């Protein structure tokens, strides 16, 4: 084989390799997109935000929001704490994600971690089992409760937290009338015992 032929054969081999890279990338991209929508979104995931449909169907805007209230031992007075403060110094988006997953009732949709399921979190419209008092597996974990105890003790020095109450409320905002009124209805109430 002459030097010229060797160079040409090397170039051909490299071209074949690049072509196979393209084919593999296309196959992987399609497979991960299907997986993202059908099962759960992996990471890294190569999908852009979908912004599918039109939320609220031209009716009032509906949002699900949590309210965190701390009850203390030896006191009837409860104190409301923002979850962003509880989870500081986690960035806002991370605090939102933790609040809407760990501190939320079980999701009633079967693929909460799929791309559409995650987008419902962005819209603050997760599909919860209404009226449930079941805690998430993470909130039942003793190490989570120990962390909550120490974090609340840090936020409220000198007081002993007895329980954390998380109320999930549906906020409805009338958009297309003059009043832009807001109505709030309770969806679920979770109680995390912290004593012992």
């Amino acid at each position, binding site marked *: 084989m002459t030097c010229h032929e060797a160079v040409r054969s090397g170039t051909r081999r490299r*071209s074949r390799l*690049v*072509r196979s*890279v*393209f084919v593999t*990338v*296309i196959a992987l*991209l399609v497979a991960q*997109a299907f*997986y993202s929508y059908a099962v*759960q*979104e*992996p*990471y*890294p*995931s*190569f*999908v*852009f*935000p*979908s*912004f*599918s*449909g*039109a*939320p*609220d169907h*031209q009716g009032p*805007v509906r*949002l699900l929001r949590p309210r965190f209230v701390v009850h203390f031992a030896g006191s009837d007075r409860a104190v409301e704490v923002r979850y962003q403060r509880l*989870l*500081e*110094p*986690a*960035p806002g*988006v*991370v605090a*939102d*994600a*933790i609040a*809407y*997953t*760990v501190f939320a009732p079980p999701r009633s949709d079967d693929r909460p*971690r799929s791309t559409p399921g*995650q987008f419902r*979190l*962005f*819209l*603050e419209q997760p599909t919860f089992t209404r009226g449930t008092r079941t805690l998430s597996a*993470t909130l039942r*974990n003793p*190490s*989570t409760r*120990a*962390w909550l105890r120490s974090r609340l003790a840090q936020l409220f020095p000198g007081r002993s937290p007895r329980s954390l109450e998380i109320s999930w409320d549906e*906020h409805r*905002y009338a*958009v*297309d009338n003059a009043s*832009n009124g807001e109505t709030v209805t309770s969806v679920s109430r979770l109680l995390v015992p912290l004593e012992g």
Partner: protein
Amino acid sequence: MGRRVDHWMFDSFAVTPRSLGIARVLIGTYLVLYRAPGLRWMGSLPDAFFRPPAGPLHLIGGIPASGVITAVSVTLSIATIALLIGYHTRLASCVTGLLLFAVDGLSYSFGHVHHSGTYLAAVVVIMAASNWGGAFSVDALRRRKGAKPATEAWPLALAALLLGFLMLTSALPKLATGWLDPSTLAVRAHVVHYHFVAPHDGLLGTTPLESTSNLVWKPLDYLTVFFEVGFVLAIASPRWTRMFCAAAVVFHLGAFVAFGIDFTGSVVAYAIFFEWSMVVDRVHVPWTSRATAEQVRDFLPRIRLVLGPAVFLAGVGLYMFSVHFGSPISSLTSRFATSPDRAAAFLVFGVALSGALAYAVVRATSATKQIRRRFSEA
């Protein structure tokens, strides 16, 4: 057909080594100034909260130890500096891209996945194969005098393919859920909804609540869908890819204004597709700067041993700075803006928008000249 595909893959996106070098400097500058690898907050959360998405991060049992987080952040800072100055560029690109994925992935292990940084991280990894350190770099100065850098165009085609695919994943759900239905105002519905989710994230205030006109909002639905679907077709031609990238700057700016979603990373990544050397050629470079470059080239072998430690120290310095003050650009904007991160994003958009508009004007002028010439020939 095979030949056309080969041409698209191997040749059509070819730009000069200097253009690739400038794209690398732009992306490196963005990463150094804008992307502070802040992960120290993770140490304050319990392991039980750490629930990584499917993929390589599942191999990690819990929140990494603070030493690991610091090591990852410092390495990313060092790799970013190396990428900016083009020092062992191929290695720096791979390390920077992979660590960007790792840093984003770790912060997405608490129940949400964002998509704003993915394309930039992928581009940085892909471009390692393009030899984008062939110009405006330490690697170029270390090259033998007169030796021409060999660059590859296929990584740009791969990056274009990925971009087209990403836009398609955004377009298909819209097409399937009524964005083209004349009775639906999808953009308005999302903007109004988000106004109640986070009233202070977007910049439109209550305007969308007051405006219900189909004439104003429906064209935005059509434009969004056509733009995203059009991107998939545009990647067949480098020229159209550039035009769509320029338009994408406006598109991402719109999303930032409406929802506060920061896609500046993607905007900066689009720089790889442009022929920057045409811009540089029009800039008058004083002869002294060429002489200085020659002097640096002659001087480099003598300081070869301290180059590595200097990059290392600069990376550590960048990390220390970001720990104490946040990203350099945010620490600058905090002097005059109440929301430094938002002001920093606007700065990036401002620069990108100026470039996009300039490109659009150049293309329009060139197209007009071509049409005139054809008419005069006819």
